């Protein structure tokens, strides 16, 4: 809880910095602030409690995901220092980023539908602006507008769904909703519609097929740091919200919802993986990949609604670490060569071996090759689904992950071929790459370290 205060505080500080002319301190204070937030969270680790009359609930689940969001934010901030270097709107951007993080934390710790909605809105509205923050770039503006239209549409669905559920159960509190649903014999029909609408609204946010169509354009058009933010912090928040609401409030419907979840899952796995094969821009490919990864998460969640959060936490950690690593390299390449087209990676191994190794590790992890973290994530997912008897669906996931190997290896193959010019990178970027490589290996080899939920 205190971590949320700290994050909001930095957001407000950034806004005020414009007025009081503290601009040069913003980056430093933000970086320290996130670290303080992590420290505060660790201090709070044992105190599981409700806040504000049960609006927020910080249990192990919420704290673990908050911790993950904050740790990833540290790396994100580190990788995108350049994003805040420009003179224009430095403080605004910083403030918006912190509101995104605050929104994500609310999305993992809500105990009330209103807070969920609030969290999603704080996160989304900031993101609409951030996606368009590269104002001179037409694609960035397009991304922002597209994201705004699609996002507000999804919010509409979500809100309507919440309203219907409220109408049926008379409560916004997710635990009371669950109580009412499990105790009453004849629920009104529209509660089902409400639940489905909530699912659709959240499926937009986690970009599950067929609600993913915004993702590729937005990911490609937005500035790379914002793309990285969307595919890590935002995705963690959105998926945790999805897990929380369906494993707490609507757990009784889990059997009826299974078909929908599995439908989403199979479509996500197949369509996203197959489409990713044909991409020639790495940012766009990573967009499809981030859609595809949701498929594995859905496989875990649909196999066992109540007890899959540990697996999902591990998978999201592995995915986010690998993604941040990949986006760090993509950003450097994009700054050096103008775009993230796969052909620009040619000869990277000879030119800048560290970046090539980092990219390789990221791709291997996303593809799920041992001993990297991504493999263990997939292993846990497959184990969970096989143990619940979904062998056929596991086979689908295995086959799509083979398709995944094909496109994740495309940049690797390109990097290893022909000669290339060295690209200069700063020492801080080098350090970031090395730390991330190390973390990807560490949690892959010793997965017990973070299996805490």
């Amino acid at each position, binding site marked *: 809880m205190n971590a949320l205060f700290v994050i909001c505080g930095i957001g407000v500080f950034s806004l005020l910095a414009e007025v009081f002319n503290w601009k040069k301190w913003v980056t430093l204070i933000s970086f320290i602030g996130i670290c303080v937030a992590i420290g505060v969270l660790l201090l709070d680790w044992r105190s599981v409690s409700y806040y504000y009359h049960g609006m927020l609930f910080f249990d192990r689940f919420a704290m673990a995901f908050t911790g993950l969001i904050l740790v990833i934010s540290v790396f994100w901030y580190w990788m995108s220092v350049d994003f805040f270097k420009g003179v224009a709107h430095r403080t605004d951007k910083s403030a918006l980023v912190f509101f995104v993080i605050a929104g994500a934390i609310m999305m993992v710790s809500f105990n009330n539908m209103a807070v969920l909605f609030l969290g999603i809105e704080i996160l989304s509205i900031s993101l609409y602006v951030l996606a368009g923050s590269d104002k001179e770039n037409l694609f960035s503006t397009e991304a922002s507008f597209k994201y705004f239209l699609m996002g507000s549409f999804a919010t509409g669905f979500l809100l309507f769904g919440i309203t219907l559920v409220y109408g049926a159960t008379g409560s916004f509190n997710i635990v009371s909703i669950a109580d009412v649903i499990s105790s009453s014999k004849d629920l009104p029909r529209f509660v089902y519609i409400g639940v489905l609408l909530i699912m659709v609204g959240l499926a937009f946010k986690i970009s599950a097929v067929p609600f993913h169509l915004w993702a590729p354009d937005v990911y490609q058009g937005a500035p790379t740091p914002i793309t990285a933010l969307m595919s890590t912090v935002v995705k963690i928040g959105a998926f945790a919200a999805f897990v929380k609401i369906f494993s707490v409030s609507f757990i009784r419907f889990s059997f009826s919802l299974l078909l929908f979840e599995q439908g989403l899952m199979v479509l996500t796995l197949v369509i996203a993986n197959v489409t990713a094969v044909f991409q020639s821009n790495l940012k766009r490919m990573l967009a499809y990949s981030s859609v595809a990864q949701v498929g594995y998460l859905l496989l875990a969640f649909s196999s066992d609604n109540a007890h899959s959060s540990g697996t999902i936490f591990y998978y999201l950690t592995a995915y986010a670490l690998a993604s941040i690593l990949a986006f760090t390299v993509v950003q450097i390449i994009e700054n050096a060569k103008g775009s993230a087209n796969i052909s620009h990676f040619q000869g990277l191994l000879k030119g800048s071996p560290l970046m090539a190794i980092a990219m390789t590790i990221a791709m291997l992890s996303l593809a799920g090759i041992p001993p990297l973290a991504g493999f263990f994530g997939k292993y846990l997912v497959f184990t969970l689904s096989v143990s619940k008897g979904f062998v056929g669906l596991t086979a689908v996931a295995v086959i799509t992950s083979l398709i995944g190997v094909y496109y994740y290896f495309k940049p690797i193959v390109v990097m290893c071929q022909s000669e290339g010019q060295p690209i200069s990178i700063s020492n801080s970027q080098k350090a970031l790459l090395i730390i991330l490589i190390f973390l990807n290996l560490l949690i892959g080899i010793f997965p*017990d370290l973070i299996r805490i939920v």
Partner: protein
Amino acid sequence: MLTVLLIFLPLLASATVLLVKQPLSKFLAFVVALAELVISIIMAFGFDKTQTAAQFSVHWQWISSLGVNFSVGIDGISMLLVLLTTVLMPGIILSSLNNTTKPPSFYALMLLMQSALIGVFTAMDGFLFYIFWEVALIPVYFICLVWGGENRGRITLKFFIYTLTGSLFMLVALIFLYFHTAGKHSFDIQSLYLAGRGLGESQQVFVFCAFFLAFAIKMPVFPFHTWQPDTYTVAPLQGTMLLSAIMLKMGIYGVIRWLIPVVPVAVNKWGEVAMILAVIGIVYASCIAIVQKDFKRLIAYSSIAHVGLIAAGLFTLNRIGMQGAMIQMLSHGIVVFGMFYIVEIIFERTKTRDLSQLGGIRNVAPLLSSVFIVIMLGSVALPLTSGFIGEFLLINSLVQYQVWIGAVAGLTIILGAVYMLRTFQKVMSGESNPVTALVPDLNYHERLVLYPVVILVLVIGVYPGPLLNISEAAVNNLLSIYSDLSASVK
């Protein structure tokens, strides 16, 4: 502890090699490989041949919540394959030493590969085995991708995805077995054996198919071999050596350790199909080898034929076949290593692998020619060479199993002689032409690699006893487990 040292010494060394500059790094890699050889020889002498259980074993907790342990050990079967790895690795590294273009990362990958290979051959835990199995794929993929020939991107990716397909099905089968272990689920090899025994017949067949797919792709057995000739041809010399001499033994070892004892009923029922596929592969690959124009591709196809015979012999499930397979794995590893090196030597000097352009090398390079003869005879299984012992035992077991299968498999000796002798004729004998007229003979460095190969081919051929003794107890134990298990379910 020696086993752990054997696995982690190259791993640590591979990190160190990256940090030092050439030429220090390649010598460091070579020294580490030699140290591995020494350690493994010490182990071989300290090895108790009468025991059936794994020796030098180590058992550490790793991921306790999932029942995964770091548990490794060496029995007779593992011992021979570990020896094969440690004997060949110095040779493979040595074969690259006079070529200074390779950066330290190349040697780091080689050592990583050695670590993973020894891990595969010693793992006594299903999950650990799978991890090593996959990790072994990564260095060889990058060796082939970065230092390979034309079209390497496409061909190596095909190789990677092909083998990964098999592995993932093996993973699903392993998870499936894991959930059938009694009590607290565990990946321990003994509990997996018990779990496999407890399965019904149809479930066993499922596990059999998944495992067999992984192993058959790795070996490769017909019809899963289509990645192999291209990959062998496009890979750099050391990559080809790693793939053919050691890595394909992972598949055979997998059948011995993780297929036959795990699902005995299914093996009993479907082993014959696997055997017939393998025998088809022998004839098919031999026939293709006869018409090959590219020297390296020819050796690649001959490798499919030889491995087919080993696989067929394994599925006879009698002692002679098993022992034949063990000795033939060693022999094939050594012979194919020497063969590919000779191909590379000739290619370096003449810039061609086209058989029709070669000829008359014997006139200018008698030493090269003599070494080639010995290794070639080892390949065609002439008595008193290492190939003979293995092939004799294997064909013997096949004839015992079924005369006609044995007869067809026996064609390998005839067809092998056809393509190998024809190759000799085209490359070595005849008149020298402009391409081959100025081929220098073996230099000091090459002799250093090839003489030990020649000696090993002859020594194993004359006196295979000690090697057969090492694996005998383990093989007998394995067969008794198999017959117990398959009997108990019926």
